């Protein structure tokens, strides 16, 4: 199956294309802002869910094999709704939520999977937020070693940059850092 013409917006997010990202804001920010403000949220909440929605798309769909099969706006809007709904649930305000599903994007065969996709993306966004929170609790040295390792630097290069004795010391440190990160994640996050 071919991809939707809006695939260009997903690709724009993946490569950080300023012009197309601004187009996403111009086309979709007003409707998200209006919906959030009509549903017990502020413009700042709207801005937050919009940005988290875009980030969720980046996390979930930035891979070579992903093909967008529906309008980008429909996906983004559903993810934003989901994120806002989860925020309200946390604050026990869900009873104020109106327009549960925006009919504008409803299409006979697509609405269920759209909601599922939005749910998955929102879950990924929550996972990401928790990874971010717990990563920040690692020591500066752990953070740096893990970042350098993710850049595919060799053990020797990392040892040199971090002033460690050799690559074995780096691997041992990376192992401890990952274990600590995992431990913090299990203590503070739910999967």
């Amino acid at each position, binding site marked *: 199956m071919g991809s939707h013409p809006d695939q260009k917006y997903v690709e724009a*997010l*993946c490569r*950080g294309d*300023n012009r197309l*990202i*601004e187009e996403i*804001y*111009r086309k979709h*920010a*007003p409707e998200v*802002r209006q919906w959030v403000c009509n549903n017990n949220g502020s*413009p*700042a909440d*709207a*801005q937050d869910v*919009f*940005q988290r929605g*875009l*980030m969720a798309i*980046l*996390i979930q769909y*930035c891979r070579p094999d992903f093909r967008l099969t529906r309008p980008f706006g429909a996906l983004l809007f559903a993810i934003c709704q989901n994120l806002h709904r989860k925020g309200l649930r946390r604050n026990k305000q869900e009873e104020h939520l109106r327009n549960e599903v925006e009919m504008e994007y409803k299409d006979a065969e697509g609405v269920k999977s759209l909601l599922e996709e939005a749910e998955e993306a929102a879950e990924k966004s929550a*996972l*990401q937020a928790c*990874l*971010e929170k717990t*990563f*920040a*609790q*690692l*020591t*500066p*040295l*752990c953070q*740096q070693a*893990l*970042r350098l*390792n*993710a850049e595919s630097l060799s053990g020797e290069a990392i040892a040199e*940059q*971090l*002033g460690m004795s050799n690559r074995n010391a780096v691997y041992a440190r990376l*192992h*401890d*850092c*990952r*274990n*600590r*990160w*995992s431990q*913090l*994640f299990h203590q503070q996050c739910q*999967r």
Partner: protein
Amino acid sequence: MQEEDFKLIDRYLAGELNEEEKAAVEARLSTDEPFAQEVQLRRDMEQFLKQQPQREQLKEQFAGLGEKYFANGGSNRKEAKILGLSRRQWLFAASFALIVVAGALLYSQLRPSLYEQFNSHPPLALTEKSSNGVNLSRVEQAFNTGRYREALDGLDQYLASHPEDLTAQLFKGIAALELKQYDIAIPVFESLRLGDTDLQDYGAWYLALTYLRQGDRKKCRELLEEIPEGSELRERAERLSGEL
């Protein structure tokens, strides 16, 4: 999960297992749920790290666009109508303006000092290190909740048996700085700043904050200039320099 399992996962994800070991791990993935979840978490961690530069770049782009499209009603907000005001309404408006000006003056008096605007510290996470009789969870908790006296005492005790732990030294210096015990803080930061480790920039940054708190802006600025391009503290250092 045992330490051996974590080592196995590391080697599996690094592609270091032979065919037989790899097949055994893959079989275990379908039968051992905690093991499978841990493998998935490690994959998520790797993906998180790999996408971090992209996310940071996007966050910067979003900041500018968010301001443009969400603040004050977004770009397509309607212009406010200009209404004619009666004398009474003008008086009311003038009084209101006076209150706003007085409020702004009060706010400028009460707003946090430059030091307070920049003294957000990384959380202390020492429990990855052996405790050796010191309850490190309590030391962490004390530091992370601002009980710096308690944290300083715990760190002193810990450092007596682990003098080589530079991260603990850094946090000892920060606790002392928060307690305004500059005679303890300055030598700690100075030694980190002059040491050849990845905490060098932290030494310079916190020494700069110490002088800022003491009111010596010149020394503060000089130290900020030492923080090199590419350091994770560089952006903060530039912002503080700008404020100075």
